[in-house]
């Protein structure tokens, strides 16, 4: 039985604007680490808040366990939430902050003490229990926010962009800690972020959203290798996928995806049947920068198609060189071997790994 279920959930904030969340259907199993990811305004926070009971559903139902909680107050939904700004009570010390929810539920004082100390130990904040939030650093406050959720022992943890307010180094560190926390607690985590890196590294399953609609649901690797539409393809993976407007040229066994004169990639054997009906139609070809190599240093075991291109700008990353290339009107990014000779203004042979090609219908934007 799924821990959380959304059924045909809609949320409209006003009648003339498009819905913030539209036809949201999702089943989340126990112990999952599910990440809702998408650009600003895509509805991911709203979807989370609908589950939390902080927003009212316009249509549809939400279930936690097998209870329909659509009209149940937040406090009775057996959930705990970590807010982006932590929302710690400024006038209470850390202990009281963490104990607040338990005190309201009339849990005996001894038990409260036990739970708070336990959670503090897990998070390494035992020494901070007497301090007030203003005497804590950002990272420490975040742990207190986590601690406040942990002591509640909820069925589901909701986290709304908890890492956004931390500096880069702390973010990476805390990411790992949250993953460990999830493993040790064994509770369902539902996590919202706009950062696809966080989604890819932390999730067991990712839900990509845009303009209130679910674009694709799947494990990180699944989304990376088989994006269902252009949006997901361009959103997941960093640096982002390269896109080209192409037309299917040729006939029979010799089909090519033609982006421009002299710039065409052959269609591999297994895809011929798929792409044949799209002859002379407009398509979008996507290929990730990691599948585009400097021809001189291409990996030995790939099926490559070579193209002449001019180097526009290069970025030295140390372990690789990001080369921004141009072929006529088309611009794309290539992740080159660090030994590459590519320099701005030069022409080099670029190898496209044909197995890394994704094709999308230009009108429906979905994958073929």
């Amino acid at each position, binding site marked *: 039985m799924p821990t959380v279920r959304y059924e045909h959930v809609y949320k409209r904030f006003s009648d003339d604007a498009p819905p913030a969340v539209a036809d949201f259907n999702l089943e989340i199993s126990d112990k999952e680490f599910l990440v809702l990811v998408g650009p600003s305004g895509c509805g991911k926070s709203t979807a989370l808040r609908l589950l*939390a*009971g*902080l927003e009212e559903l316009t249509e549809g139902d939400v279930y936690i366990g097998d209870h329909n909680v659509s009209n149940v*107050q*937040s*406090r009775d939904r057996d*959930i*705990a*939430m970590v*807010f*982006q*700004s932590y*929302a710690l*009570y*400024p*006038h209470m010390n850390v202990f009281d902050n963490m104990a*607040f*929810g338990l005190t*309201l*539920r009339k849990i005996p004082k001894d038990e409260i003490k036990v739970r708070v100390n336990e959670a503090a130990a897990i998070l390494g904040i035992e020494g901070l229990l007497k301090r007030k939030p203003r005497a804590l650093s950002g990272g420490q406050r975040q742990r207190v926010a986590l601690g*406040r959720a942990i002591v*509640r022992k909820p069925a589901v943890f909701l986290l709304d962009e908890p890492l956004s307010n931390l500096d880069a180094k702390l973010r990476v560190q805390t990411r790992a800690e949250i993953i460990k926390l999830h493993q040790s607690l064994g509770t369902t985590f539902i996590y919202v972020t706009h950062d696809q890196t966080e989604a890819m590294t932390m999730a067991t399953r990712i839900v990509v959203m845009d303009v209130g609609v679910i674009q694709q649901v799947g494990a990180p690797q699944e989304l990376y290798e088989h994006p269902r539409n252009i949006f997901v393809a361009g959103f997941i993976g960093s640096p982002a996928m390269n896109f080209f407007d192409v037309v299917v040229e040729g006939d029979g066994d010799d089909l090519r995806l033609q982006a421009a004169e002299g710039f065409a990639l052959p269609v591999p054997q297994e895809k011929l049947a798929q792409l044949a009906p799209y002859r002379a139609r407009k398509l979008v070809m996507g290929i990730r920068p990691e599948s585009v190599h400097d021809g001189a240093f291409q990996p030995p075991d790939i099926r490559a198609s070579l193209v002449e291109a001019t180097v526009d700008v290069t970025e030295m990353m140390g372990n690789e060189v990001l080369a921004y290339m141009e072929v006529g009107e088309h611009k794309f990014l290539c992740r080159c071997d660090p030994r590459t000779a590519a320099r701005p203004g030069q022409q080099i042979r670029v190898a496209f790994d044909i197995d890394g090609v994704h094709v999308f219908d230009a009108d429906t934007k979905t994958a073929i």
Partner: protein
Amino acid sequence: MAAQRISAQHRGRLSDTLRKTFGRIPLHFVILATCLAWSIPTIALLVSSFRDPSAIAGSGWWNALLDPTQWTLTNYDNVLNARGMTDAFINSLIITIPSTLFVILIGAFAAYAFAWMKFPFRNVIFLIVVALLVVPVQMTLIPILRLYTIVTIEGSIPIIGGNVFGVGSYSGLWIAHTAYGLPFAIFLLRNFFGGLPRELFESAHLDGASDLTVFFKIVLPLSVPAIAALAIFQFLWVWQDLLVALVLLGDPDLAPMTLQINSLVSSFGSNYQVLTAAAFLSMIVPLGIFFALQRYFVEGILAGSVKG
């Protein structure tokens, strides 16, 4: 060319230095002169209140500064004992303190509802409440006096005195002052409550807090500056009130200090020995509160008015 331009500016720098040394003098002069001018009336009063009645009429108060032997406490003695200022002082407290407490309590409840609860016509009603800020109290006095006359419950309340309700009662004044202070209280508190982060409330609701719990355990503790400012404003406003007491109280035994001084002024227009001491006595409490709580005063005005 550039060198010429810069040297021209450099020449200007010499006059700048001159201006810096001597230019500040007019500034200081103006400020200090203004402060002095502003303080003189109060000082005049204070000094005179310590002078012998004959001295006040005979020579300017500034003479007292040069001749300390003139200083005396007879005026204060007179005023406190013979003129009933002590009683009036206590009456002022009796009127002011409950009025302040009620307005905070009732106003805070309403402000919370306006700030964080959803209900139909919320904005309209709030606007009306704030619009009532501009209603002159005078305009309400005839009907209220009429109303009070009808609902007066006679009888003598122990300790504080006065009727149970209506004309000539303290309870009547408390309720009236509370009502008159509500628009400002709600305006001030609602602005402040509304500024508290939304996530704080959401977190509390998730934790299981009811509206009352949130109100008492989170909103009020975090709103101490605004509540302090409101308390100060209301206290001062009620303490200094003359008109409402004049109209609704009637009974001279219940008179607060303002009424008392007013009647002294009308009967003893130039009897400064009495007036100065009485006036200064009435000033002690407000001045004390002001100096002790200056910080909250300014913050309070800002929280209410200069927000955006």
